[in-house]
């Protein structure tokens, strides 16, 4: 196996696993539950910092990851509380503010490494292949979990909240509880992804978790098609692999990325899932006897 897949391919697959986990975590909040978050990278970062500082202090890797989830979810719960107060565009901007606040605070704390961040994060000891397997597995688990949630009562509640919050309330759904659940779970998973990321790259700095990062992961969710697990997965893989595929467009990769995001929203706002569903629909209609 390792003969076919070289070190470089393994590092790519590892990154894919982490990115898909991260994207699916936002999908729970924004795709399934309809709460727009423009600051999701803050939870990714919180998890990364928590895990990094713990393993540097000697805590075993698995425990550190759990702690990362807990820290991120705790902050996520606070933001979730804010979502009970503000909605839609105001929520979008509030979450954006949370993202900036996170970086702003971390950059000033020397205990967290200040602007230079944390380096020499210890190796989790799983070997390159083992770590890659872990990251891919985490993506798989989160995907399965998301599919399960979609079919469950929670998924139904999320869907109604995303559709029309006020009606959901009238129908008897405990909207605040479900919103908080979405935030807590989504941010907790993001924290795990962050912990994995920190141990993959070995060095983390506050600027890796900024507005651009938040926008990128939101783009993955929206391009994938809000809520669609496979759509978001494909989008996440595509967008993170984009710079690596085309060497010759290295100078143009941001332009392509921005253009792609723009084009998808302009011409297929349902994202990849929408495209596929639309295509299926046309196929079905074409096959039906007229």
């Amino acid at each position, binding site marked *: 196996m390792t003969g076919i897949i070289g070190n*470089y391919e393994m590092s790519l697959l590892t990154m894919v696993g982490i990115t898909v986990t991260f994207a699916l975590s936002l999908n729970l909040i924004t795709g399934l539950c309809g709460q727009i978050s423009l600051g999701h990278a803050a939870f990714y970062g919180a998890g990364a910092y928590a895990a990094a500082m713990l393993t540097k202090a000697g805590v075993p890797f698995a425990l550190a990851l759990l702690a990362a989830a807990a820290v991120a979810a705790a902050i996520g719960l606070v933001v979730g509380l804010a979502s009970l107060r503000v909605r839609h565009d105001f929520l979008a901007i509030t979450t954006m503010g949370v993202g900036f606040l996170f970086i702003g605070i971390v950059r000033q704390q020397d205990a967290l490494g200040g602007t230079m961040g944390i380096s020499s994060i210890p190796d989790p000891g799983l070997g390159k292949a083992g770590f890659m397997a872990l990251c891919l597995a985490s993506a798989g688990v989160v995907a399965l979990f998301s599919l399960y949630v979609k079919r469950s009562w929670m998924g139904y509640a999320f869907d109604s909240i995303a559709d029309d919050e006020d009606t959901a309330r009238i129908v008897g759904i405990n909207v605040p509880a479900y919103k908080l659940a979405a935030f807590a779970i989504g941010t907790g998973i993001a924290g795990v992804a962050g912990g994995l990321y920190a141990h993959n790259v070995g060095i983390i700095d506050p600027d890796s978790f900024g507005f651009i990062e938040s926008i990128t992961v939101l783009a993955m969710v929206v391009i994938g098609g809000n809520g669609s697990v496979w759509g978001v997965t494909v989008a996440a893989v595509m967008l993170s692999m984009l710079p690596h595929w085309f060497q010759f467009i290295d100078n143009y990769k941001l332009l392509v990325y921005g253009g792609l995001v723009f084009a998808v929203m302009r011409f297929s706002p349902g994202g990849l899932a929408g495209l596929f569903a639309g295509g299926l629909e046309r196929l079905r209609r074409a096959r039906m006897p007229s």
Partner: protein
Amino acid sequence: MKFRAAKIAAIALAGVIVAAGSSFAETVKIGFNAPLTGFAAADGKSALNGALLAVEQANAKGGIKGVKIELVYYDDGASPKNSVPVANKLIEKDQVVVGISGSYSGATRAAAGVYQKAGVPYISAYAIHPDITRTGNYVFRTSFVGEVQGRAGAKLIGAMLGKKRVVMITLKNDFGKSLAAGFKEKAAAYGITIVNEYEYSIKDRQFGPIVAKVKADKPTAIYASGYFFTAGPLVSQLRAAGITAVIVGQEGYDSEKFIKIAGKASEGVIITTSLDRDSKSPETANFIAAFEKKTGAKADMVAASAHTAVKVMVAAMRQAGTTDRAAIRDAIAKIRITASTGVISFNALGEVRKDVQVQVVRGGAFRHHSVISDAKLLAPPSK
């Protein structure tokens, strides 16, 4: 039967041709990472041009034992998030023999870890964070460690210019903070009182509040760190507010664009750097002329540093005479060569030992002011 034999012969022939062809097409690859997009793109482009020029010149002189040198470069956006995959790609996919960083400290530090682990020699052209060389014995740096330059700044202001009342304006990143640390370390030794220190972010271009506060502080000198795109507006705004204290900067200012942006306000600004525009050294003069010829823009410190790094690397590879990375690493450690930014030789940690050039802006250009060669003061860390 006959067809089968013919097929095997054809495949064998093809195999021979491919093998022969690939040995003819071989080049020696040097990996290079620099910020070509994002907020640091200006410096990244300069560094890339400096490196490309050095490769061109080396190839003109026969490359490395007749084999052409190829610079394989990727954008890292000055972020460790990108520099690590880029380093992986260069080492695994592009099979570079050695690597050079034309990027900022954060990205360089992250990439250095990858290079050290893979046993590939890596030179940091201008990233100044001290931890970079501490990554391991395969990592070197051809520019000053931040602290060393900061110390030189303290001597410059306190002893050479005789100003004792200083306000510090510090850029809030690795670059600015290590300079500030070095300055503060030696300030007292030269009788300097630091009245206040203000910090700003790399995105800031409007310094109204800081300027107003500095005016109230009434310093006799200002030690301000930054890059030309922040220092230009800062210096202009300080002078426009009527502040006449001498302003001392560092190599981040070292670009004609600084003078262009600040205009008349740049007159009299003094900087510590590695590039002496008035240098009589043929290396420096040739580089400055060749760079302007190639790119149409005047050389700056970042370009000179990248040029130097490539030059050192090529010289080491020629001396080692092989693509064996361990041998190249040893050659780098022992090297002593004159480049545009001075005489380069490394200590045990991989840090360079050289004089600090002090330049002043006079008549709209950087001119020679003085040189600081205090070996003890400028001693880089050795572990």
